[in-house]
């Protein structure tokens, strides 16, 4: 299974990687449990920074598309196909767009929304540190 990334594309490289791997899962080119190349191998083959591949792998792992088994390597998650149908990024955009729309309809200004969002994020971060 081959993947292609375009370094001149406006879409970030890690997003292209995620999309390509998800596509491979959805089209059954990658079956559950299939091994994936190491971060270094993929980065060198694509001639991109290994941090970019690591970021893509981290996000795919968060979405349960892939699973890392320590030194044994990285594998396609058992539920990868169903999990790849969910796009957390798109879902986040959807929820935020809905909330922003409701707040604007209630007369809240963009500036107030930004300040409130920032405060929420800061509080969440403080809570996370406290935990």
């Amino acid at each position, binding site marked *: 299974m*081959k993947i292609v*990334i*375009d370094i001149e594309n406006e879409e970030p490289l890690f997003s292209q990687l995620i999309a390509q*791997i998800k596509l491979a899962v959805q089209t059954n080119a*990658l079956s559950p449990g299939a091994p994936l*190349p190491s971060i270094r*191998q993929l980065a060198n*083959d694509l001639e991109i920074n290994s941090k970019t591949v690591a970021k893509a792998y981290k996000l795919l792992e968060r979405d349960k598309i892939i699973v890392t088994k320590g030194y044994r390597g990285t594998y396609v998650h058992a539920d990868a196909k169903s999990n790849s149908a969910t796009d957390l990024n798109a879902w986040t955009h959807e929820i935020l767009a809905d909330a922003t729309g409701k707040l604007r309809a209630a007369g809240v200004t963009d500036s107030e929304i930004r300040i409130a969002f920032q405060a929420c994020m800061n509080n969440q971060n403080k809570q996370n540190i406290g935990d």
Partner: protein
Amino acid sequence: MWIDVVFYIVLLSQVILISFYYPAKIVRRTTYVLETCPPEQYPKLYESTFYAEPEAVIRRTLTRFKLMNMAIGNLGIALLIAMAITYYSPHEIKQNGHILFVLLFAILQMVPCFYIEFATWRWHAHVRATVQPSKRTADLRPRRLFDFISPIWVGLAGGLLITWFVLYLTINNDGTPWQWNHYLTMIIFPIQMLFAFKIYRAINGKKSDPHQSYQDQIRNIQTVVQVNIFASIGMSLFLIIMELVNLYRLDMYEPLFLSGYVQFMVIFGIGQLMRTYSIKSVDFDVYKAETA
């Protein structure tokens, strides 16, 4: 007397193998590529902004390689004839003079190989600097050591290295403090690490040729892995034999073993490359102009 005859035969074999046989194969291989893949049809094969006439550069390098080998090979034959005329008897030479001769001549014979190796490396570096495609492809299959070589060979390489080290410690454990030559012998470990590093880099590193097809890349990696594992095995075997030669005072066989080792390295180095990486099976279509 018979040992002298064997010495002459083995050394003649070394001269023919390293200076005539394999260089001729390398020249034939490269000439085949130049003749079947002209720059007009396969421009990506000659893609380099560093050379005005890349094809001429390749031909010049090849001619130099051919001439160097011919000169060294003829020198070897001339030396053998001179030795025979003067009744040179290697087993009578003391203080390792004969083994030094074999060693120095083997190093001289390897000079054209180092030259062509360096020229190839420089060529690929220039091509890599020239070719910066915006679209990049990768295969999602992982590459692992045992995909390219049997675990038996890897185990043998490791086992022989340990065997040599144990043998060395046993033989040289006479209670006296180690001299510089003992410490110098330990250079074997960095050399073996170098073999391991070359294997690691071949499996996980960047492609030397950006246009190379996936199948060719895999075969290239397989060749590098096999050559380095065989080199490690050959080196450990040679060292074990040399320890036994010293132990049983078989000094007169030293040049034979050294020459045999050099020939083994060439047969399993360049020879292995030729066997596993046949030029006719290389996918040259990737170098055509219309190939994306």
